[in-house]
């Protein structure tokens, strides 16, 4: 109840009623109050001009048999075009849930969430983002090339262009020559790289990546970190990136969101403006270590009350 009041005040400030947004209880209240303040509509649109993700007072509670689980509570966050935002925090602090909410795979129970200025649902319908799951999630009856081709087929891209894009993205993740292999013939790390190539294949402006490199060994991870950084630098994509690794977060990000569990909330947001053309050796530079230190402190304080 304490949460829902917070949502309402938040909703009053900048809420926009939109038909496509699914009417959970929190949003229904929001839309009622919205009618009384017509000027709020413009403020949200101004924000959406350069911001890709707008989150205000977002909460998400799972109703389970053991009672409600507050996976996300009162999240406020704005992510701009071209940001690389890492989410770091202990297991169960809601990182995956937040990413899934942005992807319209989970329905928030309160607050607001805008993606590219429209609802998360509309953004999904517009195919605005590419999602890399924690597991590779390759289809076992498709070859690696076939798996990368899947979104392209669904989105109706012609065959000749498909082949082009498959080859390009397989090269990007160092999988050239494995196109005819089936998933079970590849190591877990290679499968995960294939799933990254699949998400990149249709060239989405927004990338949502849930611990994509979690299962990879150090060397492959370093390599892919560099590749991803270069890709981001070149293309001005917006990336939301969940990780457990502090060096990875600091190396990749323009912004680091430190989260804390039970209920899942944002503990700290750290700006991290290392030079864009950085290489892996920056990990020894003092400014890198300083940011890493702040992240580590945030993580420690964020969940000092258990483990």
């Amino acid at each position: 109840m304490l949460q829902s009041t917070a949502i309402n005040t938040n909703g009053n400030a900048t809420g926009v009623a939109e038909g496509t947004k699914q009417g959970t209880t929190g949003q229904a209240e929001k839309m009622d109050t919205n009618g009384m303040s017509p000027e709020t509509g413009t403020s949200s649109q101004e924000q959406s001009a350069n911001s890709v993700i707008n989150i205000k007072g977002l909460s998400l509670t799972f109703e389970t048999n053991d009672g409600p689980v507050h996976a996300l509570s009162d999240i406020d966050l704005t992510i701009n075009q071209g940001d690389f935002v890492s989410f770091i925090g202990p297991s169960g602090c809601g990182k995956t849930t937040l990413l899934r909410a942005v992807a319209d795979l989970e329905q928030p129970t309160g607050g607001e969430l805008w993606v590219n200025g429209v609802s998360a649902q509309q953004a999904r319908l517009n195919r605005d983002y590419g999602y890399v799951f924690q597991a590779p999630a390759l289809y076992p009856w498709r070859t690696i090339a076939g798996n990368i081709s899947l979104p392209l087929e669904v989105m109706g891209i012609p065959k000749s262009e498909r082949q082009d894009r498959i080859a390009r993205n397989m090269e990007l993740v160092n999988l050239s020559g494995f196109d005819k292999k089936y998933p079970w013939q590849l190591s877990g790390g290679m499968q995960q790289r294939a799933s990254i190539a699949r998400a990149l294949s249709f060239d989405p402006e927004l990338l949502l990546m849930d611990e994509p490199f979690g299962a990879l060994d150090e060397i492959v991870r370093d390599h892919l970190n560099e590749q991803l950084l270069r890709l981001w630098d070149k293309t001005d994509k917006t990336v939301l990136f969940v990780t457990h690794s502090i060096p990875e977060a600091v190396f990749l990000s323009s912004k680091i969101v430190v989260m804390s569990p039970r209920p899942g909330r944002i503990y700290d947001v750290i700006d991290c403006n290392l030079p864009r053309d950085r290489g892996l050796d920056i990990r020894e530079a003092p400014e890198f270590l300083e940011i890493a230190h702040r992240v580590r402190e945030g993580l420690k304080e964020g969940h000092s009350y258990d483990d």
Partner: protein
Amino acid sequence: MTTDALISPGVTGGQGLWSRLMSGKTGPVLVIVMAIIAIWYFSAVMLNSPFQKEIYKRNSVEWTTSQLISDTLSQERPVLPAPDQVVVELYKTTILKKVTSKRSLVYHSWITLSTTLLGFIIGTVLGILLAVGIVHNRSLDKSLMPWIISSQTIPILAIAPMIIVVLNAIGIQGILPKAFIATYLSFFPITVGIVKGLRSPEVIHLDLMRTYNASNWDLFWKLRWPSSVPYLFTGMKVAIATSLVGAIVGELPTGAVEGLGARLLAGSYYGQTIQIWSALIAAALLAAGLVSLVGISNKVVLKKMGMAQ
């Protein structure tokens, strides 16, 4: 104890040979087959001897045990024919007869086989269509499923004559009524299998399609259908066998003169037990052949799909 006597050569042949034989797949199967044959001979002697003793008595013949055994195993209309009698009958009615002859078991097997296959194909298509409807439409799920399940609780022997008579009345004759009975039995395992298969994709695979805003068409053809292929084959293995049962049952009420069912029926009219048993063996061989054919195509298809490891 007859079994012991029969398999003992294997045992005395040396422990090494015995354990080597039993560790493979053929060894245990061979032992079972031999045990069955031994029990079969033993039962044939037991079941046929009362009649044989009757004959001895009537003709006042002195008999020895070995005489009795050899006579019980060579009666013309035994209660239980001996395996070798059935083998000889099978040989006579397959190899020695032209396949077009009404007395050829190959001819009758072909009649039953064609009914089985037609019924199986219709059953598979029907089973798939029903399953697709059930998975995509909640009200179909609620309304169809109870009917489908209760259809299988009715004994097929009870409704087979009605199906034949009704279809005959509206002018459908020949292979189709029999095939429909085969269909009646074979669509069910297909429907159950495919329903399960279409619902089998993992959440993460469904989520992936959701992120692409995939159409239901793509969702079906690119995810649900490929996921259900292994389930389809499991269903087909059962369906081909039940289809054969349906085809044989379908031949009974027509007073048919063709097919393994007709052979069974005619055999029982005239007390031709050897003919009954050879028809039974032919049906069993047909079933085994069909099931393993489905099994082989299962392997081939899964391998083609890259799912066989």
